[in-house]
């Protein structure tokens, strides 16, 4: 089970509690999480299932490399951070 941690910026808009979810790549972990929290999906992924612009996803501290298909591997005890970068300034 990997641990999912969401930045506080998300919490203003959607209930996205930190949680654990199974899976051996990012897609499968997120799919499991979204099954329990369907409202979060649209904040993280776009309509094609890719990571939205200005969303940053880290697996064990590394920024993911596959934002389109989410194939970055996830280990049993990985931590996934989901951050949101706001625009402008």
């Amino acid at each position, binding site marked *: 089970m990997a641990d999912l941690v969401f930045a506080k910026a998300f919490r203003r808009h959607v209930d996205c509690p930190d949680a654990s979810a199974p899976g051996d790549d990012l897609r499968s972990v997120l799919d499991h999480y979204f099954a329990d929290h369907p409202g979060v999906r649209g904040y993280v992924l776009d309509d094609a299932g890719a990571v939205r612009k200005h969303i940053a996803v*880290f697996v064990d501290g590394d*920024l993911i490399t596959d934002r389109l298909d989410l194939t970055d591997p996830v280990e049993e005890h990985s*931590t996934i951070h989901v951050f949101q970068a706001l625009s*402008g*300034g």
Partner: protein
Amino acid sequence: MSQQELAWTTQLAWIVEPGHPDEPGVLWCGTIPGGLFRSDDRGDSWQLVESLWSHPSRQKWFGGGYDDAGIHSVAVDPRGPGRIVVGVSCGGAWRTDDGGATWEVAARGMRADFLPPDQAGDTDTQDPHRIVRCADAPDVLWTQHHCGIFKSTDNGDQWTEITEAGPSTFGFAVAVHPHDPDTAWFVPDVSDEVRMPVDGKLVVTRTRDGGRTFDVLDHGLPTGPAYDLIYRHAFDIDDTGDQLLMGSTTGSLWWSGDGGDQWHEVSSNLPPIASVRFC
């Protein structure tokens, strides 16, 4: 952390600064996606500073507010030509003392809460929104960072966080007095997620003791609800240290002739203001 391949395309010329007075004709230009350019002929032609573009750290830079990283600050050191500190969102701060041939980390002590906690101190991915230098005490730099206010007294070797600064330590703009390194101004907003003045009350904060205490300045600024946001290049100080200019995203422009004690509205009907500058 790694970044996907960048197109070699200038998306935005974000800042242009003249070089040292002893090198007339030199201009520096910071861009998105993170290229630093130098001109030796007042802008007729430009050369990419390859040493920074090819620096290994750049693979970790990423966009802060934009899709890609950007160089927004070029703090020229008056002690000699070719000595600058550049600020990068999000790529930290970098110093060269040899005209850009080599680069040293200048972001130690900065703190990022937009990264996984164990990377909060990573110097390659900090988000200083704006870095300014005191002309008469050039080892002193101030930055309004995405995660707070920081000051360096050793030309960027080390930064110290200022944790209390009036209504908030979040914002974009900073100005430092050209003759007094302990005097600096900021324009606070609520937070990253709420980009408006605290309680809808536009104020400027000023320290005159190096960041230990701050005055909250509002004389002449809107008395009613105001949601003006001051971007990083829309705040400037003149060579005397008396005059300040401040422009907002909602098209208001204010001037102060006494270091911010009293502000005067120049216009409230301008387009969104990205930059102001005394010339």
